[in-house]
């Protein structure tokens, strides 16, 4: 029993949490006593320190730092014998595991858990908004619901689910046995449950959850009840996870590509995650900074954002959006990568304009850093900033347009396998185009002066993040489901899921454009009765949209447990992840592949992407042009 509690794992992790809280008391009490604060025992102070020390204690108990502590203490480290690789039972998914495939599954399942929690919050919001004068929750709870909804779906779903899919697929795609830093990879994942529980836990804080939106503008956030700190610190853990993963991807992509895989032979998903990781490592420290400012303002009275003491209120927004605009691309570029994979394979054609597809990703990375203040056109920032930000924002539509047109040209004259992943990909192209169009409209400052912060903006971001990101996520999950689980999903249910989601998504979010322009502000618990009809309509559609995801859950659970066994390469794809068994062997490749051509050479006579020296794997039974390399 004792031995079991001393061994790294969830038991020891949970046991360590009280130690972390005790440590918070040990820091706080002497300092308050020495500084003659009254009272010496202050719950708020303890809580804030505990929220930093308890998570680290948990990670320590979990064993996330064991190797490094042993090494630092000069004790014999357990050599990495890869004994923690692979998952033999479901329990292995609840341990610190250094296998990128296990971590990928952990990421994806954990993210989807928060997808459903966040979605549930949205439906609760729609209950409140079904009629004007809704009494379902009070205004403060409502503000909390939409704040937590957005925060969970951004930081605990869209960003990490992409990291999870790429975690599983990317090392396979580039012919690597694992990520560059497997232990850091495991730590990155285990930071996420901490962030998630912290954000959810804010509902139990005195004064309610954080309720200043996911943007947490100061000085509303610096003067809010203690629930706000759950956001301030929760985001730090999610951000640290994100930065560590991005660093891992960058090093993996730069140093661990199989022989012959030049940058321009990489699949576009790898390019997309390379670009995204650049964005993450450069931009994410800015949101960390903005939240540290808020924390220092709240906890120690720094007055960064207190105008009465010489603080600068607008500075918060500049720092915040310097991350949070690139974050929009962090939430979209990996999806672009997924769509490129799916469309090339399912249309049986090479990606049209491969190099331009790669360069447009890099263009978006660079331009993404130049547009942040378009979120601030009506913020009272210096007026001269409006024109340059409008110009850069409009320009960024061009590389995005290049991608859309290239996908369309890839479809042209292809042999379209219209199965579930392809339906999501084609749905994505149309829905994302709508989101892009409303984005260009919002970039036009005079129009933004009217509809900024209205339901028009709510419609826009949901067309971009739901019709955009979430559609690509579904495309990716269905596409790689056979590889990740070794089972096939139910195609008929997949199609039902797509069509119901497409219909109810549009019924939910399209009318929001209308009520936004008519003058309905966002983030309100109550509204003028002139919007009653549309709001009831939207609420009903949103509940149906929520129900449509149950088809997905049922399909995933039942197929994972008892779907037909998947063959290694059900889609006849050329990229490397499909050249190994489903699910892949523990160390991915029994022999390292050599890359001899591009990843999308469908229909090219005699084209090969990779060869395996020992012929242990049969590469590329793609079309009729399968190749077996023989010595």
């Amino acid at each position, binding site marked *: 029993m004792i031995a079991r509690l001393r061994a790294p794992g969830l038991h020891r992790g949970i046991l360590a949490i009280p130690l972390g809280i005790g440590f918070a008391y040990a820091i706080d009490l002497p300092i308050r006593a020495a500084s003659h604060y009254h009272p010496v025992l202050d719950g708020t102070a303890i809580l804030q320190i505990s929220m930093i020390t308890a998570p680290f204690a948990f990670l320590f108990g979990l064993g996330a730092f064991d190797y490094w502590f042993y090494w630092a203490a000069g004790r014999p480290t357990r050599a990495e014998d890869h004994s923690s690789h692979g998952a033999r039972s479901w329990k292995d998914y609840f341990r610190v595991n250094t296998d990128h495939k296990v971590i990928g599954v952990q990421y994806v399942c954990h993210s989807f858990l928060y997808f459903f929690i966040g979605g549930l919050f949205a439906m609760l919001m729609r209950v409140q908004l079904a009629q004007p004068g809704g009494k379902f929750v009070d205004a403060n709870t409502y503000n909390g619901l939409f704040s937590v909804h957005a925060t969970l779906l951004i930081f605990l779903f869209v960003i990490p689910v992409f990291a999870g899919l790429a975690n599983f697929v990317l090392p396979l795609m580039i012919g690597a046995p694992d990520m560059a830093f497997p232990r850091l990879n495991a730590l990155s994942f285990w930071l996420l449950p901490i962030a998630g529980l912290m954000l959810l836990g804010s509902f139990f804080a005195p004064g309610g959850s954080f309720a200043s939106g996911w943007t947490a503008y100061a000085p509303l956030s610096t003067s809010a009840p203690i629930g706000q700190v759950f956001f301030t610190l929760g985001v730090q853990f999610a951000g640290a996870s994100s930065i560590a993963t991005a660093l891992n991807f960058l090093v993996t992509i730069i140093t661990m590509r199989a022989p012959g895989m030049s940058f321009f032979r990489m699949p576009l998903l790898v390019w997309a995650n390379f670009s995204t990781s650049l964005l993450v490592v450069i931009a994410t420290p800015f949101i960390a900074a903005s939240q540290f400012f808020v924390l220092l303002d709240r906890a120690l009275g720094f007055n960064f954002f207190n105008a009465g003491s010489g603080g600068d209120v607008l500075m918060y927004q500049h720092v915040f959006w310097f991350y949070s605009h690139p974050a929009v691309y962090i939430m979209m570029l990996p999806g672009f990568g997924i769509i490129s994979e799916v469309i090339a394979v399912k249309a049986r054609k090479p990606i049209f304009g491969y190099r331009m597809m790669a360069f447009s990703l890099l263009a978006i990375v660079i331009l993404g850093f130049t547009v942040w203040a378009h979120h601030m056109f009506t913020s009272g920032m210096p007026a001269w900033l409006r024109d340059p930000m409008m110009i850069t924002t409009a320009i960024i539509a061009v590389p995005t347009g290049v991608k859309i047109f290239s996908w369309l040209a890839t479809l*042209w*004259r292809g*042999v379209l396998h219209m199965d579930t992943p392809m339906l999501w990909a084609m749905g994505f192209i149309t829905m994302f185009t709508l989101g892009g169009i409303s984005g260009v409209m919002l970039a036009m400052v005079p129009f933004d002066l009217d509809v900024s912060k209205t339901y028009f903006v709510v419609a826009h971001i949901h067309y971009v993040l739901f019709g955009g990101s979430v559609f690509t996520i579904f495309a990716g999950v269905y596409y790689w489901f056979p590889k990740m689980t070794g089972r096939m999903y139910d195609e008929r249910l997949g199609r039902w899921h797509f069509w119901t989601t497409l219909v109810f998504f549009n019924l939910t979010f399209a009318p929001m454009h209308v009520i936004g322009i008519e003058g309905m502000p966002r983030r309100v618990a109550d*509204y003028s009765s002139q919007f009653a009809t549309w709001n009831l309509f939207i609420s009903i559609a949103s509940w149906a949209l929520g129900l449509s995801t149950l088809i997905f859950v049922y399909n995933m659970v039942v197929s994972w447990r008892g779907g037909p066994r998947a063959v290694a390469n059900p889609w006849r794809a050329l990229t490397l992840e499909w050249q190994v068994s489903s699910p892949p062997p523990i160390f991915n490749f029994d022999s390292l592949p050599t890359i001899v051509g591009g990843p999308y050479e469908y229909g090219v006579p005699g084209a090969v992407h990779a060869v395996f020296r020992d012929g242990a794997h049969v590469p590329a039974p793609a079309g009729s042009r399968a190749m077996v390399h023989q010595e």
Partner: protein
Amino acid sequence: MAETHGAQDTPHRPPVSRNTVLRLLGIGVVAAAIGIAIGLSIPWFPRAAAKQAHTIDTMYYVLIICTVPVFVLVTTIVLFSGFRWRMRPGEERLDGPPIHGSTRLEVIWTALPSALIAALVVYAAVVLHDIGVAQPNTLRINVTGQQFEWTFSYPTYHDAQGKPIVTYQLYLPNNRPVIFEIHSVDVIHTFWVPAFRLQEDAVPGITTSFRATPDRLGSYPVICNQLCGYGHSTMRTTLHIITTSAFSTFLAEHGYSGPSAQTASVHSPVTTSSTLADAGPTASKEGSQ
């Protein structure tokens, strides 16, 4: 070294005939025309009540005309591809033609959207400049936001005690240019008048502003459009646009006894602080210029 096996006998998809392209183009043009017609016939906006609003409404309809064809183009190609090129029985092993790209096409679909967007940006910049132009005889109104209430004061009209007239609903004379100078005493609010199509944040520590010229009598909502706390959704008031004579009566009722409203306040346009250097915590910034 490498060898192929199972040579492909089935031919690739044939190129699309000129006729099909023309028909597709026809469908696209008709769909775009219908889309634009629908877009223009929807009464999107609430009643406009300022000169600036008409300019912005026009701009929105121009945006509709420019962007609907883009959506129609993309959707038409996706739907056409889905119907025309879906895999049919017997085509399970068929691949598409190995087309890797076309520099000409890529130049076209980089250049054309760039041109469209450049035109829109220039147009938007002109509109933005026009709606912010300073007018003679501008009425200055101080707008103050606080949780969860708006206060308006008329600094050029003093009551018997020599204090500016203060109201909680906004009264404006018709057809006289206004500049709103916006303040906040606690957190950020947004002073939004949907009938004007204009808004600007009320930010603690600085003064923001925008200009409008009311041009239609009536009452319109004034809305706080920035989340400002639990009472945010109730932070609303009413704007009344009234005739010049009614405005004089309004002023008189609030204790103003100076010269008539028409002549009293020939107000020179507020100068913009051009650098941030002189922008202390209370510096004035002009929002809409």
